[in-house]
């Protein structure tokens, strides 16, 4: 494989520019993977890797992924929050690569909340 250079980056930029003008950059969903010490130690990184691969495979552009720290429910980690615009956030508990695949395909893409994995609905209150 040829070595990647700054020129490749420029080509990518041009390509992305062309594509961007054809598409609205709307953000429909925000997915937060909780990445505190507890989350990382219980497998949040694998969950995140799987999620990124799923998003890449599905070629969706309206899903934003972010991380957050621990919210005090360490025993239920890995935790993932799915926020679809105009809907209350859903927190999933004990997430693993298989569960995140199901959550992404069924909830994020098809809109069906995966009740068996849900910890809570709504935002947490942190003091």
């Amino acid at each position, binding site marked *: *494989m040829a*070595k*990647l250079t*700054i020129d*490749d*980056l*420029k080509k*990518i*930029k041009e*390509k*992305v*520019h062309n594509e*961007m003008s054809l598409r609205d950059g709307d953000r429909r969903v925000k997915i937060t*993977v909780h*990445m*505190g*010490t*507890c989350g*990382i*130690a219980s497998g949040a*990184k694998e969950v*995140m*890797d799987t999620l*990124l691969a799923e*998003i*890449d495979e599905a070629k969706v*552009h309206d899903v934003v*992924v*972010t*991380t957050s*720290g*621990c*919210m*005090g429910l*360490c025993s239920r980690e890995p935790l993932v929050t799915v926020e679809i615009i105009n809907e209350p956030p859903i927190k999933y508990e004990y997430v693993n690569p298989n569960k995140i695949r199901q959550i992404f395909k069924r909830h994020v893409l098809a809109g069906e909340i995966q009740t068996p994995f849900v910890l809570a609905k709504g935002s947490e209150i*942190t*003091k």
Partner: protein
Amino acid sequence: MLTLSDHILDITENSIRAGAKLIEISVDEDSENNLLTIEIKDDGHGMDQNTVQKVLDPFYTTKTVRRIGLGLPLLKDAAERSGGTFQINSQENQGTTVKATFGLRHLDRQPLGAIINIMVILIISNSDIDFFYKHRHNDRRFEMDTREIRKEIEDVPINHPQIIKYIRGTMEEGLREIEPEA
């Protein structure tokens, strides 16, 4: 925490919470001296000296949602388990530097792990923060600086899938060339 990359991700999350805009992560492998050094440096809001004294206490945390804070104590333990050392320096309003050394070939040193995945996770989830990754293996070096990438891509977001693919690609190539021992 099974790999050193997990620790790096964890400590970097502290920097992000401290409002850092630039986070430098350096991995330094010195085979001759059997030494592996990992340093995470941020320009966040830092800590006063009183707080720095307390961060290695597992029962100290600045969070109110739980009463324990294990990130730094776990890294210190991982370093000392492999005959290494641990240092933290912090200046209020200037930033914090965490430095851990490990016995490179020590039996109890955790493997470095999937560092590329960690960098990708950090960049995707914190597109407003710059990351500078430096990796040295004896006389071979690799660097990845999101500030340089940002200069080239102008208004394209750094967490765009194509840019991430590029970052992953350059890191894979770069690390393959320096053949990390860790």
